[in-house]
């Protein structure tokens, strides 16, 4: 995005050496000056207002005993009663811990995988190979979770392709689709297949912005493949890595819904219950909208705090973060 010029234009004929006087413009002047930019921003602002800020304002029902059958302001305020109920719910803490577990694993094992895939892609010279490789790892991102889980059942299920192949070889059936102890690995496998390619694309874009002459100069100076990666590639994409890391941390309590809901019956609720499924089963399905909203608000507040803390740490480490430090 281009920086917006906010100082007054230089006055012609001003004596050389005389200090420039920056006159603060009034709101009206700025509106007249910037109206095209404001006009261009209007659709995005309207979209945000209608689909984000207006719905967000309904978070207030987390503090009400809300019923859809009462006029809105007839719903009594109940303070933090829903939050008290949330924190005392025996299924909330396990759901929170599962969420944190899956988030941490995602961050530790999927995030680096996307970077690794991008680096591999970046090093491939053949356009044809790149194209095939990119399609293979990128296309699953567009599959729905229903399809992903169904494909996994058909391939890795106890009556799936691999099981029947193993049986043919005299082995046993695979049992990883309905075994709670293997669900974490299974979840990682599904993320890796579905999402790693998408993460890779973003890092590839960052890699493309690195000046090729840096590599050429380093090669001339005798830097090998690893040194070039360590001293040019990684520093070149570091701002993007930090940016995505911060956004990931902000979303640490959001690990998705469908993947866990769809496999809940197979491995049990204790293994798959995450905050989003908790909100669905305890809030939406039970029509306890205030309770569900309280859980959602808790998630949002924690996410906001995490994102601000992570951004602050990034700034302290000299990184740009999600916005520049002034």
């Amino acid at each position, binding site marked *: *995005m*281009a*920086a*917006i010029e*906010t100082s007054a234009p230089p006055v012609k004929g001003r004596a050389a050496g005389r200090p420039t006087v920056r006159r603060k413009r009034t709101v009206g002047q700025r509106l007249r000056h910037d109206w095209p930019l404001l006009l261009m921003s209007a659709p995005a602002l309207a979209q945000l207002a209608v689909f984000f800020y207006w719905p967000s304002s309904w*978070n*207030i029902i987390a*503090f009400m*005993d809300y*019923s*859809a*059958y009462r006029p809105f302001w007839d719903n*009594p*305020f*109940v*303070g*933090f*009663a*829903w939050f008290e*109920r949330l924190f005392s719910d*025996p*299924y909330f803490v396990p759901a929170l811990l599962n969420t944190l577990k899956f988030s941490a694993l995602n961050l530790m094992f999927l995030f680096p995988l996307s970077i690794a895939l991008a680096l591999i892609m970046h090093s491939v010279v053949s356009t044809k190979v790149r194209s095939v490789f990119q399609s293979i790892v990128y296309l699953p991102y567009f599959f729905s979770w229903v399809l992903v889980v*169904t494909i996994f*059942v058909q391939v890795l*299920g*106890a*009556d*799936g392709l691999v099981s*029947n192949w193993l049986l043919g070889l005299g082995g046993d*059936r695979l*049992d990883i*689709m*309905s075994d*709670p102890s293997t669900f974490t690995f299974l979840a990682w496998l599904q993320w890796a297949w579905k999402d790693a390619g998408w993460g890779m694309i973003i890092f590839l874009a960052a890699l493309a912005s690195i000046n090729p002459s840096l590599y050429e100069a380093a090669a001339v100076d005798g830097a090998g493949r690893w040194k070039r990666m360590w001293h040019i590639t990684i520093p070149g994409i570091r701002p993007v890595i930090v940016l995505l890391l911060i956004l990931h941390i902000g979303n640490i309590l959001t690990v998705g819904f469908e993947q866990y809901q769809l*496999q809940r*019956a*197979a*491995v*049990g609720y*204790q*293994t798959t219950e995450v905050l989003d499924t908790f909100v669905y089963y*305890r809030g*939406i*399905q*039970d*029509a*306890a909208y*205030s309770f569900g909203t309280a859980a959602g*608000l808790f998630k949002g*507040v924690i996410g*906001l705090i995490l994102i*601000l803390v992570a*951004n*602050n740490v990034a*700034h302290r480490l000299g990184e740009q973060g*999600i*916005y*520049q*430090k*002034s």
Partner: protein
Amino acid sequence: MATPSDGSIFRRRSLFKAAGIGAAGIAGLPVMAACSDIESGSGTSQSTEGFDFLPEYKEYELPVQPDLVGEPPNHPSGFTTYPEPVDGVEAAEGAGEYEITVPMWGTPPSGDDPYFAALQEAWGGTKINLRQADGNTFADTSVQWLQANEFGDAINMFGWMTDAHPNFQETVVNTFYDLTDIVKGDISERWPLLAGEPTASWGQSVWSTDPTDPETARIFGVPQNYSSGPGNGIFVRTDLLEAANLAMPTTVEEVLEVARAWSDGDAGKWAFLGLDYVTPEWFGLASSPGWSFIDGKLVHNCERPEYTEWLEFRRTCWDEGLIHPDTPTGTLDGHALHIAGTILMSQDGISWWADYTNQALTGTATGSIDPIGAIGFNGREPIRYVNKTVGGWTFFNKDLEKEQVEELLDVMNFCSAPYGTKEYELLQYGVEGTHFTYGDDGIPVRTESGTTVVQAPVNFKEMSGQVQVFLTGDPDLVQRRFEYNASVKDFAETDIFAGLRVEGPAEYKTAAQTLLDQQDDVSYGRAELSAIPDMVETFMSAGGEAAREHFTKAYEQAQGN
């Protein structure tokens, strides 16, 4: 990203500040406001008898009498012949267009099919567009549609679906049209078939606007069929049984023996798929809502020793590889597996019997199926679950005008046509030549189009109850069903809440859902049988004990104490 200018409110510190103020604002508002306790659904006990505002019952003279005379309600009569159909009702005149949400299992037929056009013409012109929603998720998703008033002009719901609603009584009285003033008294002139529906059916369509005040009872739905007898079962592929030289099991122990003898995981053959909602009867456990009166008090299924026996049985079946190993994933097509012979015994609704038979007759399936009878465990007297109430209701949107409701009732009246009428034939079989042809014995045989469009569950066939329900269809199947019902009727489970519709408290429903999840954990080897006492204790403390009080009051009311 551009550097924010000095005046930007989104500077780093400002952002922290803004977030803090926002949080304080949100948090402060309720602190300043008055606090009160949270209200949650405390459950209801709705009487379904003894009202003076129901439609006056006027017997509708049936055009034909059944060939097989049973002992309704649990042993309905049946027809093994097909009569020349007669006109059942005079067509009304209607010009309105309405949308009705209905559950649908399988692929929904196109609204352009001649079946729908023929029906529209036959009942007088009213156009009904069906919003066909997935039957598998209908119960859960309908909770949201109803709260948001997004179900069109009417919705068709089966009774068991209402269990998914945390407080269905509240939903009914706030969402649906109060039909009382339209249908009370003598309605036989305009709606003779609705007037011919059993009074008990209409009684079960009553909810009180104030659950604590019986005087506020009103009619909110048009009842579906009141057909008793078994509503589901474990269906066995009798041809596969015979081929393996095995006999239909008559005890739970024999079920296990047959399952062990037939299952061969390496060959892709398993005895069972699901075992959750029918097999409790084999152990003498109560059907929904799961309470029995034992030794002077109400006892929930999970508190009984038979509950542990039942879970031990399920666990044995799982551990010994008698259940399809992908069953817990919930992604399998049970019908397809049963037809393919992958599964020997399939848990299903009673309609699967007729569906399978029809598919066998039209060549899309082979062999035949029969349900296991009333069987017991360890020499105990068996029980058989039977339908206790009307199948469900069609509810109208409260925002409709009276004239619109009356026009829709004209359509409901048409849909109540009994066996032997032209209306019944059109509803059940469609248009002759397109959806069915007459067989050599004069009985309609569905064409492929008839099977996919008309037989497809569920459309107008379940919109409104028939004045009397019979066993109909393939004569051989009718005979088998008739004999089956005769063999199990004496074991029909007694309804201890007869005359009442009892809805448990919301917390009890939530606790029950958790118990169901835990049952699956034990049944599929994810938890040990030793976990059962803890499961029960958790359930009772999370809502079960409070529910005992609620259900005990209902029991005393039902028993007239």
